[in-house]
């Protein structure tokens, strides 16, 4: 077709001459070629390395928390140390792992490839976002290492501004800086998806991962600045208290309102949980279609439900404040709206289940993670409903029920999505394949471990054990011990996963461009991709999940190769 050849002729004319056809990994060996890279794939790998380290730190802190809860009155540390440990666990896991994880690694690496572009819209902004994140992480880690924070990750004043004698300002400043990194990544992804799609890549042919990343980026862009201002005001108040000239922006003793901080804080932090889960949902769409060899059921519904979650997610934040002192009428409004936010998530679950129906399902590791997501995220989501209901929330707020709920959606949802994405796209990113047998064991073990860890916590919470308390009645001990045992299983599973993934670099089979026989544009590129991703701009002719027709998006056969 003449237009296609014109495209190809013109497009290939535009690419600068590249000396060899090298993969992005081999394109420059020095440390400077990595630290000063603008290649979105290298930036994704840099995020991956740091995220793995931070996840290890956060996980170790979780272990310390759980170990302390083995006995009814603090097994291994005093109360003050316990406050600092669970605060550190929350801050590290949320801001240094969960929020940047899939956007930073798979978003950066794959969104440009999936839309057929050479790079992100703003490559220098991309590398800047990694450095900004590292600077913020440095402040946060410094604060945690030099005395810690004992306020809980939610940093509520007036305790954090007036009474806490811990490292509030540097810790908060670190979180503030990491927020900018999220805004930069989000901005980059939105502009890239709007302006840099290949010919033929209509919105209706965009992979659902890209729809999910787009919705995630919308939230990052619009919600994070409000966190920035909340933290700025908190830092000013804390600083003024430290200097002996207190002002009371959030301090009731000086005519301030502590709920104002909570409003500003949760205005971001609730949409933040959708920043965490939406990319994982995007990944699940990719995994379920590939490993059941079926087109997605209800593409339009799944695509728009991502946007719907993003929009409705902005309307529900005060469900974290039902017992804090907001007006009864506001509580009614937020409770009603919180019920609505479940709808787009449920739409996805139903569509994914229908995708599986009568598919040719195979149970490789990515699929086990995706199926685990389906079940565990559903449980987590459903347990949100008694929390959104005013009457039951009165009983459940600030108990372990809440802890179990958010860990189910964050670990059972987000982390399983992240691991599934890592396993699915590992051969593409590195050109090597890990052990199929051990990866399946690892995936199952993670799911078992984490169900064991968090299911007892629903019972604990329902029966009244408060969160963040190191002490509990003796009759709860067996449930706490069971939960800690589950942690041990999870820890073993994570060690196993890291072992075989790292081993794949040394003993793994070389992977071809399309080891899963998948249909996305990223599987048309080589494994690992060349620096410019494609030899020439691909022309998209069909949708992203044409498994029944066995076609990739460029119209070639989607065979395993």
């Amino acid at each position, binding site marked *: 077709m003449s237009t296609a050849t014109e495209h190809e002729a013109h497009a290939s004319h535009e690419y600068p001459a590249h000396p060899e056809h090298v993969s992005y990994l081999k394109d420059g060996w020095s440390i400077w070629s990595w630290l000063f890279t603008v290649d979105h794939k290298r930036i994704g790998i840099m995020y991956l390395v740091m995220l793995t380290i931070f996840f290890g730190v956060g996980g170790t802190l979780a272990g310390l928390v759980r170990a302390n809860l083995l006995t009814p009155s603090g097994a291994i540390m005093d109360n003050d140390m316990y406050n600092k440990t669970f605060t550190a666990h929350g801050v590290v896991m949320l801001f240094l792992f969960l929020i940047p994880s899939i956007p930073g690694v798979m978003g950066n690496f794959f969104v440009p490839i999936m839309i057929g572009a050479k790079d992100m819209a703003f490559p220098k902004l991309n590398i800047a976002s990694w450095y900004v994140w590292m600077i913020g992480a440095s402040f946060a880690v410094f604060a945690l290492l030099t005395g810690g924070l004992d306020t809980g990750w939610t940093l509520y004043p007036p305790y954090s501004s007036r009474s806490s004698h811990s490292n509030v300002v540097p810790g908060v400043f670190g979180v503030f800086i990491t927020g900018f990194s999220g805004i930069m990544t989000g901005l980059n992804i939105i502009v890239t998806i709007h302006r840099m*799609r290949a010919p033929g890549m209509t919105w209706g042919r965009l992979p659902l991962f890209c729809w999910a990343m787009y919705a995630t980026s919308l939230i990052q862009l619009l919600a994070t600045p409000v966190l920035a201002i909340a933290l700025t005001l908190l830092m000013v108040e804390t600083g003024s208290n430290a200097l002996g000239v207190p002002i009371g922006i959030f301090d009731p003793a000086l005519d301030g309102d502590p709920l*104002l901080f909570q409003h500003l804080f949760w205005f971001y932090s609730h949409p933040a949980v959708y920043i965490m889960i939406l990319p994982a949902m995007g990944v699940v769409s990719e995994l379920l279609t590939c490993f059941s060899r079926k087109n997605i059921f209800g593409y339009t519904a799944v695509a728009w439900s991502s946007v719907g979650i993003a929009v409705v997610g902005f309307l529900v934040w005060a469900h974290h404040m039902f017992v804090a002192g907001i*007006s*009864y009428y506001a509580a009614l409004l937020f409770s009603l709206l919180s019920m609505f936010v479940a709808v787009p998530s449920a739409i996805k679950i139903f569509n994914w289940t229908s995708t599986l129906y009568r598919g040719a399902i195979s149970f490789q590791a990515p699929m086990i993670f995706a199926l685990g997501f389906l079940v565990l995220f559903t449980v987590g989501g459903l347990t949100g409903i008694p929390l959104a209901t005013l009457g039951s929330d009165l009983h459940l707020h600030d108990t372990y029920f809440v802890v179990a709920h958010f860990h189910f959606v964050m670990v059972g949802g987000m982390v399983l999505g992240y691991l599934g994405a890592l396993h699915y796209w590992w051969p593409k990113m590195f050109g090597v394949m890990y052990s199929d047998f051990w990866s399946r064991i690892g995936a199952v073990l993670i799911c078992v471990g984490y169900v064991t860890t968090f299911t007892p916590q629903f019972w604990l919470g329902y029966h009244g054990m408060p969160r963040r308390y190191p002490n509990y009645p003796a009759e709860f001990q067996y449930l706490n011990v069971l939960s800690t045992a589950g942690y041990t299983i999870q820890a073993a599973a994570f060690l196993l996963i890291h072992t075989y993934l790292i081993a794949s670099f040394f003993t793994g089979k070389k992977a071809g461009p399309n080891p899963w026989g998948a249909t996305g544009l990223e599987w048309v590129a080589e494994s690992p991709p060349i620096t410019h991703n494609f030899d020439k701009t691909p022309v998209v002719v069909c949708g992203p999940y044409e498994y029944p027709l066995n076609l990739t998006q460029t119209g070639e056969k989607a065979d395993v190769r």
Partner: protein
Amino acid sequence: MAFYFDHKHQKLDDPAASVDKPGAIIAVWFVILLGVIATIGVSFAHLGDSALIVHMLISVVQVSFVGYYWMHLNKADSLTWLTVGSAMFIMLILFAMPLSDYLTRFLGGM
């Protein structure tokens, strides 16, 4: 949906094609200046609480002029308008919903 590689229909972004007219730029400046004088003047008029509404109305008109003419929203594509609209929508939520709490606290004794 226009693709940016559709070379047959590519709009060449000719810089000189959409230049502002000097008179238009200055006229906007004048309008906004009038608004500044009005806003300060209103605060001397002893309107009390309703001075706020007048002030905010004047500010909204001024910012609309800045946005529409000086920031070239009058020539911008629908995606830019969507960006502005999204920001305004989220701002609306940021104001309306916390105020729904602050304005109804202790109402009816609850």
